[in-house]
């Protein structure tokens, strides 16, 4: 018989090792999946994890790494604060979309004025849009005790409808001869979010992501608020005795994660995506959930996890063009990673005893 024995304190070794074990297991299971699809598993795994970094086109793809990792990290940092406090914001995708719509609206309203203030105003509007969308579940939760998981998720669908309304209606390019989608920000320098250093993929969103990592690290390690967030998640009763106001915690966590997701949205729409279109969002808000867990809700971990996840996006695109691997396979692959992560996490909190005797 295999039995689990609870560890007195979580194992520090396994806490650090589980993400790595999970990635290895996912590679094995993913390889099996690709083999079932009739692809050479070794070639597929190499295309996804090795070629973007060291292969033939690495000079270009390495830059793409930051482009994809930026929004993932930015969103995941916000989510991790909530997850730590036991507040489940899973509607980051909606907050991301609303940030993009709000930010783009401000930018497009100013068109074609050239002013240095436009881009900062867009960023503020984007953060506000995401914050607003995050505050809806927060207020409903604190006022009416509504489940934030369901509300934040429902709002993703609402945001998608607003996005399509924006792309087809109120933000549509008036000179776009009736095609859906807004003006392209690449042609409007005051509002665009360009690559800062050519070839690196570094844009303002990536800078913001790095700043968010640093701030989150300080918040959680050095600040009383970070302590309260951790306490609220691990021991809600103790937190209340400590004077932590649960309502304030909810507002704060959902507000911060909404604002960060909104920022990611506006940076994306003004930069890599270039315009508001019906499907400019590619599910970063959902993938960021995996990133947050893979990074063990730790800012530095999230930074690494975001880069790894970005790698699977880029490698997945390569595998789909070079090997004909369906792009959905990568989505399944990412989901699988979360499964394995949750599965091996048992080692952090429990000891596994084989053939335990004497259990009455």
């Amino acid at each position, binding site marked *: 018989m295999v039995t*689990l024995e*609870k560890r007195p304190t979580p194992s520090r070794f396994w806490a650090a090792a589980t993400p790595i074990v999970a990635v290895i297991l996912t590679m094995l299971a993913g390889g099996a999946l690709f083999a079932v*699809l009739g692809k050479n598993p070794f070639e597929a795994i190499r295309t996804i994890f090795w070629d973007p970094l060291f292969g033939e086109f690495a000079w270009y793809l390495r830059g793409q790494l930051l482009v994809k990792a930026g929004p993932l990290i930015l969103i995941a940092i916000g989510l991790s604060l909530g997850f730590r406090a036991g507040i*489940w914001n*899973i509607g980051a995708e909606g907050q991301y979309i609303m940030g993009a719509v709000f930010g783009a609206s401000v930018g497009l309203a100013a068109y074609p004025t050239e002013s240095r203030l436009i881009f900062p105003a867009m960023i503020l509007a984007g953060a506000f849009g995401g914050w607003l969308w995050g505050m809806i579940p927060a207020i*409903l939760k604190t*006022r*009416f*005790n*509504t*489940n934030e*998981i*369901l*509300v934040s*998720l*429902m*709002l*993703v*669908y*609402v945001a998608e*409808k*607003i996005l*399509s*309304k924006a792309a087809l*209606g109120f933000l549509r390019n008036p000179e776009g001869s009736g095609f859906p989608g807004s003006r392209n920000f690449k042609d409007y320098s005051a509002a665009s979010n360009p690559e800062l250093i050519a070839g690196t993929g570094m844009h303002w969103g990536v800078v913001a992501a790095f700043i968010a990592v640093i701030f989150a690290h300080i918040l959680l390690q050095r600040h009383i608020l970070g302590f309260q967030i951790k306490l609220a998640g691990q021991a809600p009763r103790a937190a209340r005795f400590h004077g932590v106001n649960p309502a304030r915690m909810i507002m704060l966590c959902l507000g911060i994660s909404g604002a960060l997701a909104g920022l990611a949205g506006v940076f994306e729409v003004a930069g890599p995506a270039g315009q508001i279109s019906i499907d400019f969002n590619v599910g970063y808000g*959902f*993938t960021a*959930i*995996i990133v947050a*867990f893979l990074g063990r809700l730790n800012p530095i971990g999230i930074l690494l996890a975001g880069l790894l996840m970005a790698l699977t996006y880029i490698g997945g695109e390569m595998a789909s063009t070079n090997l004909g691997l*369906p792009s*959905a*396979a*990568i*989505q*399944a*692959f*990412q*989901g*699988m990673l*979360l*499964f394995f992560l*949750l*599965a091996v*996490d*048992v080692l952090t*909190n*429990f000891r596994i005893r084989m053939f335990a005797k004497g*259990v*009455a």
Partner: protein
Amino acid sequence: MDFGGINPAVLIASLMVASVPILLAAIGELVVEKAGVLNVGVEGMMIIGAICGFLTAVGTGNPYLGFLGGAAGGAALSLVFAFLTQALLANQVATGLALTLFGLGLSSLMGQGYNGIRPPLTGAVPFGPLADIPVLGVILFSHDWVVYFSIAIIAAVWWVLRYARAGLILRAVGENHDAAHALGYKVGRVRLLAILFGGAMAGMGGAYLSLIRVPQWTDGITQGAGWIALAIVVFASWKPWRVLIGGYLFGGISVLQLNLQASGSRIPVEYLSMSPYLITILVLVIMSSGQGRGGDRAALNAPAALGQNFHASR
């Protein structure tokens, strides 16, 4: 008898059809939650059920086998959830999310090359002359078997939870797993069975979408139906018959907004199509908010051990 181009009898008949997927998924999830397990991966199990059912039905040419395939697919995915949460004691919310993310990816992978194919037709149950009764015939006797099955399964769940010993054990496990364990009930086994039932029902609900409601395969076919099913369980305060009311309410809204879209209403399409989600939120607010001294009505009736993992230390 038409109101603005909408015939009420046809509307009721079509809302009964529209609500079947969420009804099935919600009654399955109700049983799961009654056992004290919160599986938020309904959306993932539904979409896996949708594609498995579709592939089976197209492969065999038999729509009945399709529903069986859908149920099997949903149950298979729920088995992963059961293993992670019951054996490895993983966080239930996180595992449910993983189920959804994985299910969405895997389903679109499995559905490659099946877009645009029409599945074999599931006919209406032949009621003979009964179907020709004006108004009532359309509402009661014009449906496929799954519509009747969904009502029957709600009745069965209600009966089992209320009168059968199995239902009592299930509720005991969901209310206080330590006490149930002390009484000698196998908490893990009961929860495993509940999770499998929930998965099978969600899978069947998904299969109904791809085989009857749409009927074809498109990526992301569920469109949040699984999440609405979760909301309906809260709306129903974990009572089976209220699942039926909730399901028909949402079915009614989605059919009504589609009809309004079709009849060229002045409200823009985007606002109409976001209405089911907004109303879900509204209903959650009403059900969760305190009414006088009653406090949180929904939370009061929630199974006490909902979402907590059980680890028998001794």
